[in-house]
């Protein structure tokens, strides 16, 4: 029973590139990702027996609909597959229960497939309804395991955490091991761990875990050895420990996570990637880069967290080392550089700190880290007893802050332009971390790009953006259908015209006048037959060949007569009598033949006449019907009504879609505007801080000058140290 295992491939990225929202910025690093990759392994599930009484034509059609749905599904065309399912169920309401076993080549249970496709297409309500119904119907453990798992995923996407947890909780470890494949099993483990970490009360509900640490260990052990979820669980575990206040334990956990790749990263990569390379249609290089980037991203975040914890624990030297391992090109690169400077400053290496921050200051783009570097540098100069340099850097900073405000103002204008968000959604790729890529053609690419990408890490924002993109896809489809409806209306008009023209041509050519003439001919033939019958003229009913023979005989007799006449005129001897006798014999033979064939000929003639009568009668009726139709106007009322009805529905959906699109644009615009407001507030705060510091420093410098009468020399800040990536073979996309 367990030997046959099949896989459902949910195409979640098609319409839900981000799946459910992330549970937490820190804790739920992996949460939404799971749904994107929900690849399910479903066991063999026996179908209900096919109804043997059903007409074979219906069975054939049912199978063809289902097989076409499979064809679409295996190619990743979710909409086509769901439409085929819809068509099947419209024609055969109980059809999915009657799919024959021989069509389950991949051991796919049809109804579960429909539910999974619904989930993939983003129709969670429908998916949940299907899974709940199936759970009532199913009795085998394997069916139920699959259904509970899918239902749990559905609830997770719907953000119904309690229900999701309860659904996952219906599966025990043994069932999960038996009936879920490794990938699905890992997802099941990770999602439960996520739910428990956010809702500790669920632990008591489950009643199977004693404390957080043992629970985390339990999850870690339950995951497969090669699972990437290990990274996320470890990181989340360390954060939970931090939250509990046990800094030393948290540091140990973070260090363990960071050290893991050094112990066997290559081995991990190979074992993780090789199956993908062999089966996926995507290039192995792309996959490898994506996997590496994901792992490096998690490690960067872990290092950043560890470094700041070490700073907090007054271990700046160690923090300094950890900061230096964070990739500069990663998402946490600038944050790491800023912290790197702070670690140096805390170690009393002010020169180094200034050099590090200088590297941020030299960045031309807008970023809170580049701006804060001015204040940090001023702090370092002040600490190094260089108030003039501190004032100088603050002055430069003030100019930069003013410039940042201008950039933010321009960004606000650009964001409010109609079409900006629509274009952003159109270009949105769920697989790309940046909403605006570095190669994107954006005029104001400084602050705008930064802010949009900054907001792009918000799951909420990406969720709305994905929804907007989906409405755009739907709009395109609906518009295409709208055009098709217009085309069909025109087509019906044309058909009507063509039909009218054909009728006119037929009437003009007097095609219908030919039938009475044919009837007249038939009547004449019938009359001939009656005459032949009355007169006993058997020759009249003989075939054409016979008539030819008779004709030839007549010609021969005439010729003989002529020869005899001419011979008499020329006084030549007459022909031998045997010529005439020969012709007489032939004539006699013909008469005998006609006489012999007469009864058969008469019978056949009567039969043929009767058939001809029937045909003429039928033709007459058809002609009358045709004449009635031709005289009336062509009627396509039913088709027109169908077209009009669908056109109205399309228009209605287009309107709804546009309404939804507007509200999404409004929401996204609000989010962006809010972020710009926050950034402006932050920059204004920097300005205020800088101005206050300048006043204070100017005062100090004045007092210092007055006291010493000398000028403070500038400090050589030197070159900023280089950041080194953790692993040498880092590939940048």
């Amino acid at each position, binding site marked *: 029973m367990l030997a046959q295992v099949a896989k459902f491939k949910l195409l979640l990225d098609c319409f839900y590139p981000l799946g459910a929202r992330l549970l937490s910025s820190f804790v739920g690093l992996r949460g939404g990702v799971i749904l994107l990759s929900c690849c399910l392994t479903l066991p063999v599930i026996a179908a209900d027996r096919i109804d043997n009484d059903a007409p074979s034509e219906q069975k054939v059609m049912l199978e063809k609909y289902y097989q076409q749905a499979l064809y679409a599904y295996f190619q990743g065309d979710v909409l086509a597959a769901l439409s085929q399912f819809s068509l099947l169920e419209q024609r055969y309401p109980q059809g999915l229960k009657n799919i024959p076993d021989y069509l389950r080549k991949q051991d796919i249970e049809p109804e579960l497939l429909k539910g999974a496709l619904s989930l993939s297409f983003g129709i*969670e309500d429908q998916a949940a309804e299907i899974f709940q119904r199936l759970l009532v119907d199913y009795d085998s453990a394997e069916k139920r395991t699959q259904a509970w798992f899918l239902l749990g995923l559905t609830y997770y996407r719907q953000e119904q955490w309690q229900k999701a947890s309860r659904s996952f909780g219906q599966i025990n470890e043994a069932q999960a091991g038996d009936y879920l*494949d490794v990938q699905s099993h890992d997802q099941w483990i990770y999602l439960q761990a996520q739910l428990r970490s956010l809702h500790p009360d669920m632990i008591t509900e489950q009643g199977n875990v004693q404390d957080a640490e043992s629970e985390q260990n339990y999850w870690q052990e339950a995951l497969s050895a090669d699972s990437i979820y290990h990274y996320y669980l470890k990181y989340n575990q360390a954060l939970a420990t931090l939250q509990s206040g046990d800094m030393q334990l948290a540091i140990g956990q973070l260090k363990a996570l960071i050290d893991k790749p050094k112990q066997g990263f290559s081995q991990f990569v190979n074992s993780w990637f090789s199956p993908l390379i062999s089966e996926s249609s995507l290039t192995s290089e792309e996959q490898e880069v994506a996997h590496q980037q994901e792992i490096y991203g998690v490690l960067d975040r872990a290092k950043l967290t560890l470094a700041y914890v070490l700073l907090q624990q007054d271990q700046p030297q160690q923090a300094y080392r950890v900061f230096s391992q964070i990739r500069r090109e990663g998402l946490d690169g600038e944050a790491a550089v800023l912290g790197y400077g702070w670690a140096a400053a805390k170690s009393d290496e002010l020169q180094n700190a200034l050099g590090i921050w200088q590297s941020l200051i030299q960045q031309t783009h807008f970023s809170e880290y580049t701006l804060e570097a001015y204040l*940090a540098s001023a702090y370092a100069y002040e600490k190094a007893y260089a108030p003039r340099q501190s004032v100088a850097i603050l002055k430069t900073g003030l100019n930069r802050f003013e410039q940042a405000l201008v950039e933010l103002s321009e960004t606000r204008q650009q964001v409010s332009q109609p079409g900006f968000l629509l274009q952003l959604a159109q270009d949105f790729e769920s697989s790309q971390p940046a909403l605006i890529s570095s190669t994107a053609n954006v005029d104001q690419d400084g602050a705008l790009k930064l802010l949009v990408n900054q907001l792009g890490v918000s799951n909420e924002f990406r969720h709305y953006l994905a929804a907007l993109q989906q409405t755009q896809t739907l709009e395109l489809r609906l518009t295409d259908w709208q055009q098709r409806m217009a085309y069909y209306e025109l087509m019906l008009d044309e058909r009507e015209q063509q039909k009218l023209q054909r009728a006119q041509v037929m009437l003009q050519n007097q095609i219908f006048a030919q039938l009475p003439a044919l009837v007249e001919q038939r009547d004449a033939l019938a009359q001939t037959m009656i005459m032949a019958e009355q007169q006993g003229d058997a020759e009249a009913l003989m075939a054409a060949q016979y008539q030819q023979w008779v004709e030839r005989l007549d010609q021969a007799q005439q010729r003989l007569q002529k020869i005899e006449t001419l011979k008499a005129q020329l006084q030549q001897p007459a022909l031998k009598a045997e010529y005439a006798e020969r012709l007489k014999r032939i004539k006699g033979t013909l008469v005998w033949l006609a006489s012999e064939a007469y009864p058969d000929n008469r019978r056949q003639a009567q039969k043929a006449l009767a058939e001809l009568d029937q045909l003429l009668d039928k033709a007459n009726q058809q002609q009358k019907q045709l004449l009635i139709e031709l005289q009336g106007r062509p009627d396509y009322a039913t088709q027109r009504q169908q077209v009009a009805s669908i056109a109205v529905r399309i228009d209605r959906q287009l309107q709804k879609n546009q309404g939804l699109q507007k509200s999404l644009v409004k929401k996204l615009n609000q989010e962006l505007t809010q972020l710009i407001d926050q950034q402006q507030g932050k920059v204004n705060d920097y300005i205020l801080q800088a101005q206050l510091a300048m006043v204070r420093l100017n005062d100090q410098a004045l007092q210092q000058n007055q006291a010493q009468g000398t000028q403070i020399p500038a400090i050589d800040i030197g070159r900023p140290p280089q950041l080194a990536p953790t692993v040498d073979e880092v590939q940048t996309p």
Partner: protein
Amino acid sequence: MTIKQAAKNAMQTAHTWYPGLSSMVRNLLVLLALGVLLASQGVKAQQNDDTSQTLSVQEQLQALKKEVIALNRDLFVLEEDLLFPSSTQLVVYLAMDVGTYFDLDSVEVKLDGKTVTHYLYTEKQQEALVKGGVQKLHLANLAQGEHEISAFFIGKGPHEREYTRATSLVFTKSADAKLLELRIVDSSASQQPEFSVIEL
């Protein structure tokens, strides 16, 4: 999409989930603690605020998608009625069995000697056929009466050899829709693929 592709998508999208760290300069230590707190509590609060709107958008989008599926279905029915009425309709399906002995590259279909379809198959399409899918290869209008259909299959046969085979069928089109199926079946006895056209 294969299971591996889905896994790949998951990993590609993973970096989109990294949360941004807010200001770290002002008070690093406080910030770190705040960050962790935000992880567990702030988000919960945010969820409550945003849930109503999120659900509303989700519900609207779901309703829209449901209606799009229903529209697609009805459009399919309408188009068949309008363009291919059953009195003249001819449907040619293509089905494939295991596929051990034959890798399908292309199929050419001729009706009464005229080429009506020439289809090239991708790996994914071939895979879909082998897994039990059926392709509606040709849909057309055909006059009632006797006709002949011929199908030419090109691909790779046993031992990776180029393989071209043909099959044909004479059939009678009546007033009802005519369904034909081109079948490629592995024959374990001959260890060769077998091709046929059948009337459904």
